[in-house]
């Protein structure tokens, strides 16, 4: 018996209903975890199980959040100024790492001569943690924006290079062969076949770089900054304002998650062929 017309439409709607119900179920789960997490935290703080000076309650942090929107104390900046300053530093560092790191990794992975000449140096630079660069960077360029950007750059640069390098080396040999049999030059094959087929790995590298550049922020802003979320956390510590410290941490977390979400959407679009 063939199913069509109204029956088919009815089945389709039923199917959609079930699917929506499932999506809704998972949504609830996600929201529940967040509520339970903050609920427990609030409970622990309210009951005085931990001292509110060491761990302020979520309600208190929300209060501080609202207050920081209009008040400059204790660090001397509005919250928005701190967020903008941090975004500026980390995105500058991140984009310069992507712009330099990805093409470098791709070229190193494709052209053997670049591989043999540059990889050894890169392998030596790679294990140096970004924080270890701080003293020398301060000597080089003081404590301004460019110094902070450079620290972030180092943290984001490495995954960009490694993933692009590995990604393009994993290019399917058959695809290269296809391109060559159609008479494409090595460079054309690199552009038209190598780069697109390494894109999934490159995107993963960029995602790691984005995470790194955001999380190295606090370290970078330890360099005598005058604004930024990391700076706000430092100031909060100096003034013994645990609420400001935790607010800074929560904001770094939330903003990091938002950046990562935005990037995932871009990734999904670019890799729609997968």
């Amino acid at each position: 018996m063939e199913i069509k017309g109204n029956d088919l439409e009815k089945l389709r709607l039923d199917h959609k209903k079930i699917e929506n119900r499932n999506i809704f179920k998972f949504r609830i789960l996600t929201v529940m975890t967040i509520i339970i997490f903050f609920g427990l935290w609030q409970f622990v703080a309210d009951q005085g199980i931990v001292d509110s000076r060491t761990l302020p309650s979520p309600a208190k942090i929300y209060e501080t959040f609202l207050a920081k929107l209009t008040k400059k104390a204790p660090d001397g900046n509005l919250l928005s100024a701190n967020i903008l300053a941090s975004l500026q530093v980390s995105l500058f560092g991140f984009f310069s790492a992507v712009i330099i790191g990805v093409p470098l990794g791709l070229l190193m992975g494709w052209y053997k001569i670049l591989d043999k000449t540059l990889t050894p140096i890169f392998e030596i630079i790679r294990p140096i943690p970004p924080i270890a660069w701080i003293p020398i960077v301060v000597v080089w360029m003081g404590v301004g924006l460019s110094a902070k950007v450079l620290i972030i750059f180092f943290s984001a640069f490495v995954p960009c290079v490694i993933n692009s390098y590995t990604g393009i080396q994993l290019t399917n040999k058959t695809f290269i062969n296809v391109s060559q049999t159609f008479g494409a030059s090595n460079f054309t094959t690199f552009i038209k076949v190598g780069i697109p087929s390494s894109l999934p790995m490159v995107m993963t590298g960029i995602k790691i770089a984005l995470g790194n550049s955001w999380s190295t922020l606090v370290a970078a802003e330890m360099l005598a900054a005058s604004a930024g979320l990391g700076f706000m956390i430092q100031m909060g510590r100096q003034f013994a304002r645990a609420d400001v410290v935790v607010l800074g941490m929560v904001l770094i977390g939330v903003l990091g998650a938002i950046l990562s979400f935005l990037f995932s959407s871009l990734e999904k679009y670019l890799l729609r062929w997968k």
Partner: protein
Amino acid sequence: MEQIKTKKVEVRNLSKIFFQKNSSFEVVKDVSFDVYDGEFLVLLGPGRCGKTVLLNMLIGTETRTSGEIHINGAESGKPSPAMSMVFQKKALLPFKTVMENVELGLKFQKIEKEQRRKICQKYIDLVGLHGFENSYPHELSGGMQQRAGIARAYAVSPDILIMDEPFGALDAQTRYQMEEELLQIWEKERKTIIFVTNNIEEAVYLADRIILLSSCPAHVKAVFPIELPKPRDLFDPEFLRIREQIETQTDLSL
């Protein structure tokens, strides 16, 4: 009623040895054969006997250790628009749509987009993929992917088409259907085809002439002209007799 046959491809004493640290490995040994204009030639040999290496040397993406290859009378050493290839499997670029894949060769030849689209559309229609131009390879079945691969090879209007076990990864039903359709396309377009397979039935079904290759290293073991009219019946006694005859001479692959 033998026509005067023009030689399209001449392969003379072709050998390939791979060298490793302390050893060498001969995969193709002193292979010579001719391919005539418009001919459907099948290279039949057991799995892993160097057939793909032989094809890669033909098309110019693999260097040879010794020997000569003449295409249309001229010595050939690198890929040329005179030849194109249909690969074993999964050779469509996954990040390009069917149309973009079929266009690939013409794009590298810097043909104008409009003209290129027109040519490609013709071959996409010919292989029965009309309506799938904007699909990505992962959205297609194995058979449809190979159709796109065939359209891609035809789109550059090569003199010679090389097919490397194109139906090897397909299920039996799809395979029979694809063989039949390939013959129809071949009748229509009259290109020279060099078709590699390890399947005797497929070889006898398609070939004007079969060159039987030995197990590793590959060398020419025997040549069988197949004069049955096409399309052939797989259960015709004559068909079965030829199949049997070739089977007894074939090396078993490991």
